[in-house]
């Protein structure tokens, strides 16, 4: 087991503070997609990044943004490697990330059941506008694969729900 050096921790903070291109309220660290930062020599760094969805088109923008942030921090040689395992899950979104999603008007994902598969639809999703748990599903897929479209029965507002994966 290799422990993270002080420099790696510092570079991880830099890479982790890059905003998610699709949901800029979240940083990559809060989204939970930044897996590791390795320093291989003076000025030579490798970053491990995991995609949210296999077809997530944002991963290329994320890589470019991380490279730019580390270049600006004085690292000339940056490579970003995509890793699939262990698979990203919405449980990887930090508590702070969930708070920001709700503040942004997106209902955060619910904790995952342990047996895998979609979360039963009976578990209530709270309206990010008025806090009511009386909400209904309009569509399983919204503007991006990671969101479902719901409506609040109490305040009648539609809202996005970051669905569990």
């Amino acid at each position, binding site marked *: 087991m290799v422990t993270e050096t002080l420099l790696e921790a510092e570079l991880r903070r830099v890479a982790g503070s890059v905003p998610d291109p699709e949901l800029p309220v979240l940083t990559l660290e809060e989204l939970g997609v930044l897996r590791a930062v390795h320093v291989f020599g003076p000025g030579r760094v490798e970053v491990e990044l995991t*995609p949210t*969805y*296999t*077809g*997530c*088109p944002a991963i290329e923008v994320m890589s470019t943004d991380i490279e730019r942030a580390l270049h600006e921090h004085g690292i000339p040689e940056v490579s970003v490697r995509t890793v*699939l*395992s*262990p*698979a*990203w*899950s919405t449980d990887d979104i930090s508590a702070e990330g969930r708070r920001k999603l709700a503040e942004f008007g997106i209902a955060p994902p619910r904790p995952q059941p342990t047996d*895998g*598969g*979609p979360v039963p639809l009976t578990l209530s999703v709270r309206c990010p506008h008025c806090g009511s748990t009386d909400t209904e599903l*309009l*569509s*399983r*897929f*919204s*503007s*991006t*694969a990671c969101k479902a*479209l719901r409506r609040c029965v109490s305040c009648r507002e539609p809202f996005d729900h970051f*669905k569990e*994966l």
Partner: protein
Amino acid sequence: MTAALAPAALALGDDALVLSHRLGEWAGHAPVLEEEVALANIALDLLGQARILLSLVGDEDELAYLREERAFRNLQLVEQPNGDFAQTIARQLYFSTYQGLLYGQLAAGDGELAPLAAKAVKEVAYHQDHAEHWTLRLGDGTAESHERMQRGCDTLWRFTGEMFQPVEGVDVDWQKLEAGWRESVGAVLERATLTVPEGPQSGAWSAGAGRQGLHTEPFGRMIAEMQHLHRSHPGATW
């Protein structure tokens, strides 16, 4: 990657690529906006799987855009035309149930495809949920929607047998896969007041043919369209 993995990655990658393209054909034609978005999202998940799988074999663009029809190893089921919305849903039901069970088994193993399978199986659960939801809605809907849903299921039934032909390098229990599929699809059709089709699950002329590079007539037109841009403008980017 070990060379032994190539046939497996190609077969599963082509399934995902071809179905992704078919679903993409719904853009601008779906019955409601929510479905436009849903089918596009499912297509995008499949394209992501295809890119990872084909990259295990070689250059993903060359494989997608420069291979001849006979070099594709996808199931004939996924190349079938969209038909009406009910037929597309029938194809989704058959395929997502298969893919969910297949990836589920692969994810539980320790083969080279396990990491991808573990990731994709969670996405496929949503595809399956979507297909089952619509099968119930259409099957147990109006007389018209019921008839169309039944017709879609009947039309595609003869392409389902091919799914359970063992694929070289895919280490799963195929009999268990088939039994699980029949049970799952059968239960959904029953709840949707539909009849499980009775005909053979493959024609003598077509058994397992897609996996050997023999495709049905509509596939030629589909890949001509899919490959047109890349072949006309080699190396095009945007």
